[in-house]
């Protein structure tokens, strides 16, 4: 079926990719537009990038958001890896159903629900203990809760596809569980951790709902500034900002993917080499 209608399939895929890529390409294209009328091309210019750097509201918000995104990326990789490790290593323990539910649920639960409930928790805590005030700290926790599941799921998937005998071998050779984790598990899942880190960073830096709910009066973050401008319609500065964002993410993802593929190929080559050597040794020594 596929072979006969190959061109049909290719056309279909091309259309899907057109759908996926045209909108963002237009943002990139018009970010270099000289005119302030966003949909009319009048000439090439870096004007809006310059405007971006002198926009104080935007730059200070971007700085604050960058800090939160970095903190979120590290904390969600830490907690997410831990949670993912617990799921795939221990599987059944008291409360394991609840635990996996709590790891999986944030993937689907609407953000508004999670945001409002966390806000109410923090307000309740503030009422009773006078801490924490709404601001950077509460946003950080909220963003971490958004990202932990993604990291945990990738880690579970990665650990699931891993060879368990490596762990057993290390343990048999006398490594403590901690040593097995740092020397064997961590290096093997490092690629999953990098993707988790990147994803958490990008989720955190443009999350509107959680940020708006958990931010205090003095914390103005990038997504809130962008959101309030975007609601009014097109904005050339937002085009420039979006272009910078798209460029950064694309480079990071492509580089990460490239290294991942290269490592995978190298591992496969080494493994086939090892097998070849072993079978050659067996041929020479029929007694073993």
């Amino acid at each position, binding site marked *: 079926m596929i072979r006969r209608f190959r061109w049909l399939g290719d056309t279909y895929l091309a259309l899907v990719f057109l759908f*996926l*890529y045209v909108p*963002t390409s237009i943002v990139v294209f018009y970010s270099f537009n000289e005119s302030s009328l966003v949909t009319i091309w009048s000439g090439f210019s870096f004007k809006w990038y310059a405007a971006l750097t002198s926009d104080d509201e935007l730059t200070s918000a971007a700085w604050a958001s960058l800090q939160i995104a970095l903190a979120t990326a590290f904390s969600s990789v830490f907690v997410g890896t831990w949670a993912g490790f617990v799921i795939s290593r221990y599987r059944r323990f008291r*409360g394991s159903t609840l635990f996996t539910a709590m790891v999986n649920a944030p993937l689907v639960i*609407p953000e*508004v629900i999670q945001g409002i*409930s966390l806000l109410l928790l923090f307000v309740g805590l503030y009422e009773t203990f006078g801490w924490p005030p709404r601001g950077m700290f509460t946003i950080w926790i909220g963003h971490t809760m958004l990202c932990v599941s993604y990291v945990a799921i990738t880690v579970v998937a990665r650990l699931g596809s891993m060879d368990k005998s490596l762990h057993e071998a290390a343990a048999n050779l006398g490594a403590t*569980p901690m040593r097995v984790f740092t020397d064997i598990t961590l290096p093997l899942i490092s690629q999953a951790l990098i993707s988790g880190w990147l994803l958490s960073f990008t989720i955190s830096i443009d999350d509107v709902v959680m940020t708006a709910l958990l931010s205090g009066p003095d914390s103005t973050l990038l997504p809130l500034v962008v959101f309030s401008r*975007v609601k009014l319609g097109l904005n050339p500065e937002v085009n420039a900002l*979006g272009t910078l964002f798209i460029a950064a993410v694309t480079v990071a993802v492509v580089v990460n993917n490239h290294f991942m593929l290269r490592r995978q190929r190298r591992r496969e080559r080494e493994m086939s080499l090892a097998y070849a050597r072993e079978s050659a040794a067996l041929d020479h020594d029929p007694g073993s």
Partner: protein
Amino acid sequence: MSAATALRRPWRARLSRWLPSGRTMVIAAPFVFLLVFFMVPFAAVLKISFSDVKMAVPPYTAIAELHDGVLRIVLNFEHYGDVLANPLYIGAYLDSLKVAALTTLLCLLIGYPACYLIARADPRRRNLLMMAVMLPFWTSYLIRVYAWIGLLKNQGLINSFLLWAHIIDEPLKLYHNYTGLMIGMVYNYLPYLMLPLYAQLVKMDLTLLEAAGNLGARPWQAFVTITLPLSRRAIISSSLLVFIPAVGEYVIPEILGGSDSVMVARVMWDDFFNAGDWPAASAATGCMVLLLLLPMAWFQRLQRRELEAR
């Protein structure tokens, strides 16, 4: 074993009687974290949804009071009654369900054939193609929604092109209405649907299809009797992955939907920020949780089975 570890044993052994085992601690740490920041907040929502509005910060009354040695618990069901009797909320819930269902359906119609084609492409190409599908998912969500304004506006690119080609005489209204909302929703949720679906389709045993072909099945028969049933679970779980968050979507209707769509997250948002009616917003949140409990439990079961299949 070295002498040092042998010497350390006794106090370690004594201490370990008092401390929980390493395994328990390793499990407990993330468990407690998730319990505190995921489960406890829901309790807070339920608590506040049963309390009264008060002109203060926070704007609600306590539900349990210890007064002269008497514990008084006042549960106020009024807000739930209000939510269920309020045509605005009922309409918003129905609207959200409708939009989410339509989004899921359209994503499936567009995404399934695409996943199928990618999964059957040659291995080198399909990694590249799948990365191309996921790339927009990595770039800023807000920018991706915003990007559509330039296309959908009255003077936007779609209308300009259609006018220029004399296909239409006056601009189509695509922005700030249901059309814009649906386009934005499908665009943003498509990668969520495609990833799990692709993962299932790519690991399918192709010899089954060959066997069917050899036994005389036509390609479409093989598809209906083999491919579709085998990908059933992936279809359901990826649909839920789109449907459940889509019900509570806030940003896309706010930017692209305009005043046409009154999805429930927007009503909750207004109650919360503009009216300051926290108990009502909490009751609405509680209702939404109840509404989504069944699909969420379903998703949970599928995820768990997936985990155990490994």
